[in-house]
């Protein structure tokens, strides 16, 4: 097997099991909600909330733990592996879980005959969860390194997420803040600024990941 695939396999199996149970539990919860709400307009709202808000939040929180929660962190740091590679290898399982839960949820919704066509075509539907997930994964990683504490990073990501939920009106009307508003695609899906918002979120995620790599190079802060 290719070394990169083996690395991914080990990265998946070396993580704590609760980091997989956590997203699985939320997936199960929202699937139960879909079953209960099937046939009502609330089923669509629940699906929207799961894809656009829950998946990104979980990915952000898990990303804060991606590197610093590693029990063999000091061993990892003593290898010649570049920081960017270590970070990406640790984030890959989280992205994979996000991808599988998003597609699994949509597939199950289709099986339950819950109509998600209001979200848009296949690509547009994937962008609803992908863009905020990219932003929060980057932010979660960065904040964990800034605070040199995974729990602090996770709490900070949760704080950003809650602030955006509460301050919806302000984010939607502010000329700059709306570009980094995580839930733009579900509140104003027809808005011409939506592509700008989605690009900004992905850009924010990439920027945060670059900054996180830079911080990860300061290895002694984390051991």
């Amino acid at each position: 097997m290719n070394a990169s695939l083996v690395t991914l396999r080990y990265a998946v199996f070396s993580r704590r099991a609760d980091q997989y149970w956590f997203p699985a539990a939320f997936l199960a919860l929202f699937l139960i909600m879909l079953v209960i709400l099937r046939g009502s307009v609330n089923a669509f709202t629940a699906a929207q909330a799961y894809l656009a808000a829950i998946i990104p939040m979980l990915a952000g929180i898990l990303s804060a733990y991606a590197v610093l929660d590693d029990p063999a962190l000091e061993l990892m740091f003593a290898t010649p592996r570049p920081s960017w590679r270590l970070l990406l290898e640790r984030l890959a399982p989280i992205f994979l879980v996000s991808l599988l839960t998003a597609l699994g949820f949509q597939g199950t919704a289709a099986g339950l005959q819950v109509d998600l066509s209001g979200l848009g075509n296949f690509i547009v539907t994937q962008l609803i969860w992908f863009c905020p997930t990219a932003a929060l994964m980057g932010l979660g990683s960065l904040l964990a390194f800034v605070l040199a504490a995974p729990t602090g990073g996770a709490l900070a990501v949760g704080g950003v997420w809650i602030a955006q939920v509460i301050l919806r009106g302000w984010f939607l009307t502010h000329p700059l803040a709306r570009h980094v508003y995580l839930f733009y695609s579900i509140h104003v899906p027809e808005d011409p600024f939506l592509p700008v918002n989605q690009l900004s979120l992905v850009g924010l995620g990439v920027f945060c990941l670059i900054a996180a790599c830079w911080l990860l190079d300061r290895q002694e802060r984390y051991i």
Partner: protein
Amino acid sequence: MTISIQINQLKKTYRSGAKAVHALDGVDLDINSGMFGLLGPNGAGKTTLMRILAGIASPTSGRVVVGGYDISGAKNRAIVKGMLGYLPQELGLYPELTARQFVDYMAILKGMDDARRRSARVSEVLEMVGLTAQADRKLKGFSGGMKRRAGIAQALVNDPRLLIVDEPTAGLDPEERIRFRNLLVSLASERIILLSTHIVEDIGQTCRDMAVLSRGQILFRGSPNALTQAAAGHVWTVTTAEPRRPDNGLSVVSMLHLAEGVQYRLVGVHPESYPGAAAAQPGLEDGYVWLMKEKNQAVETMAA
């Protein structure tokens, strides 16, 4: 090919607000192939030095050259990490991986991409540390000694020119400790093995070259024999029925309850207050205690 380490005026200061802790305070050392012991009390700066040599921590000032590479630059640090095997004091493992998977994972992270060669090498190092029979068992079921052996297997998997082991025998039972020490000695002919410990016996049994580090400074550099001989004429045994422990500037290295009283092994300038004191042959532990006394360093003896 053998390598060497040169450390010049190495300093490391940790700051927390207005408080500064000098973990390393002007360390100078030259280390060549073979087993090198670094001895010192807890908090002496040993782990900081090990981490700097492993490229994980950066010095505040000073120069470290490993195998001709000055590790102040990121590029050279990566090169040195490529020739490094590292077993940290706090060894964290992945409980859900088997020993074979764990060592294989570390081999990949060390840049061993060829699957066939990697697999052969993983089997080889597991054999070296005596874990072949347990190679496919999950690490969560391993004893402390087996985990240490898995740790040394991952450290050896890239055939390192420099092997750094930090407090490797802490928490091991006597049999495991002996096995571990013998393993290290058997590996020492082709590389530098840097053994950091506060257990004097580990150094005496394995190293021909050593240093004593305390409060961030090198107090002694030489052979274990030279450290032992430094205490010659300063080691006595006293047997007394008195309940009070001997003091008067003497350090109690050990005590033994006998039928006629308690026999104390003492290190100090002279046991004037104990006319019955008999001179004793010094051991490495006595040499260490004598050195610490001479340098006015606190030493955790039984009189402390």
